[in-house]
């Protein structure tokens, strides 16, 4: 019985050695193959007159996973971009009418959405024109003026302007007709922003030109002043490196809030 057990162990050990030995032989064979391939490649390059450094450079510049075909493709050096063309409101209204009459309701819906987009872009442009060119010594950044509209849906219309001088910045954002505005209004009406007397005061309720507002302060981002306008609009100012709450308030006071409210059709 013991002899049988010993011989079984011996066979097992022999198998282990033979398999690891085979592994060693395979590794040796692989190394030899690699060395031979390198030698052949070098010979071929010498004959073709290709520099080794040049080849390495090409390989390092190629994005991983791309084929050699892509290496010679031209990269874009610039173009005209897209032309910003606001939708033609009159044309889209005419299209909507025709589609509706012919029973193409999906098309009619699309045309109305495009017309709404066109109107919203015009409203946004009008509001931007009415905003002050400079506020508290900060001039407007012409290239930062922005009107964003989805034409319909929850996002509504957003108008954005920035004022800047050195490291002092004021950002004004007006959101109109956005669904989340009702939530903000409800929050304010229900005293969501309850004021405390203890601890650090990071926000409080204030009034800007007679409109209820919330001012917030954060060491990293600076001042933030939010004024809900009517039922579905909101104006938010963010002041970076403003010295005091008073300075922030006087910056906001230079905006014609009632004018903006009227333009947005808010009561």
């Amino acid at each position, binding site marked *: 019985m013991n002899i049988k057990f010993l011989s079984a162990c011996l066979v097992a050990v022999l198998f282990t050695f033979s398999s690891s030995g085979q592994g060693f032989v395979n590794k040796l064979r692989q190394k030899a193959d690699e060395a031979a391939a390198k030698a052949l490649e070098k010979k071929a390059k010498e004959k073709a007159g290709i520099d080794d450094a040049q080849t390495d450079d090409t390989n390092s510049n190629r994005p991983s996973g791309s084929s050699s075909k892509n290496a010679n493709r031209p990269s874009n050096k610039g173009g005209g971009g897209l032309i910003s063309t606001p939708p033609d*409101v*009159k044309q889209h*209204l005419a299209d*909507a*009418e025709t589609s*509706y009459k012919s029973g193409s*309701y*999906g098309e*009619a*819906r699309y045309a*109305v*959405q495009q*017309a*709404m987009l066109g*109107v*919203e872009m*015009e*409203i946004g442009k*009008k509001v931007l024109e009415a905003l002050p060119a400079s506020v508290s010594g900060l001039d407007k950044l012409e290239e930062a003026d922005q009107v964003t509209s989805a034409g*319909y*849906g*929850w996002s509504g219309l957003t108008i954005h302007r920035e004022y800047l001088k050195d490291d002092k910045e004021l950002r004004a954002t007006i959101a109109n*007709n956005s*669904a989340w505005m009702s939530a903000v209004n409800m929050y304010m009406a229900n005293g969501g922003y309850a004021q405390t007397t203890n601890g650090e005061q990071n926000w409080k309720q204030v009034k800007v030109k007679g409109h209820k507002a919330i001012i917030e302060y954060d060491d990293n981002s600076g001042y933030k002043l939010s004024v809900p306008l009517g039922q579905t609009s909101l104006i938010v100012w963010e002041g970076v490196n403003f010295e005091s709450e008073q300075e922030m308030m006087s910056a906001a006071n230079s905006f014609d809030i009632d004018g903006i409210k009227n*333009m*947005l*059709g808010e009561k």
Partner: protein
Amino acid sequence: MEKMKILLTLSFILSLTATGWSQDFSKNITTAKNSYAGGNLEDARFAMEQMLNDIDMVIGREVLKMLPAKMETFTSNPKNDNVAANTGLAGVAIHRDYGTGEKILNLDLMSNSPIVASINAILSIPFMGNSGDGTQKIIKVEGYKAILQKSVDAESSKTNYTLQIPIGATLLTFTAPDTNEEDVIRMANLIPISQITKLVE
């Protein structure tokens, strides 16, 4: 004869309502055009919002006409048919249900549904759609990918199914209580999805 009278009255009421929506659309488009021409952009926009509302209501009513009157043995409940246009957050919501008592099948369509994007994400990633425990799987109904979810009621031990089919930005949801997978799929195939797609998209 009595049934005939009821049907005629119903179709007359429906045609009157459709005419009503049509008139609203005409009125609103005139307001939109005039307001825009007069530079009153906010009024023009408001009139356009109303137009979207009118279109959504018409779409809803047309979709209801397309839906089957019966889902196999379950008859629809016309008094529960509903179309609600919510321009803004979501588009039109259309509802029809079938059956009586505890076994009521619900068919709902919501355009511009906020959850369509997440459902499409599940459908586009193969390993996310099918759960290991068999409570969720991806199937096809009339060529449209859909998510079929199974849930077992802890109290009654009945198996309920929910089928969600995104059609563009519209979400079609079909719920069937106390049933089996084969029956749900067979009933779902009675819904004219291609025709509905043409109308809502």
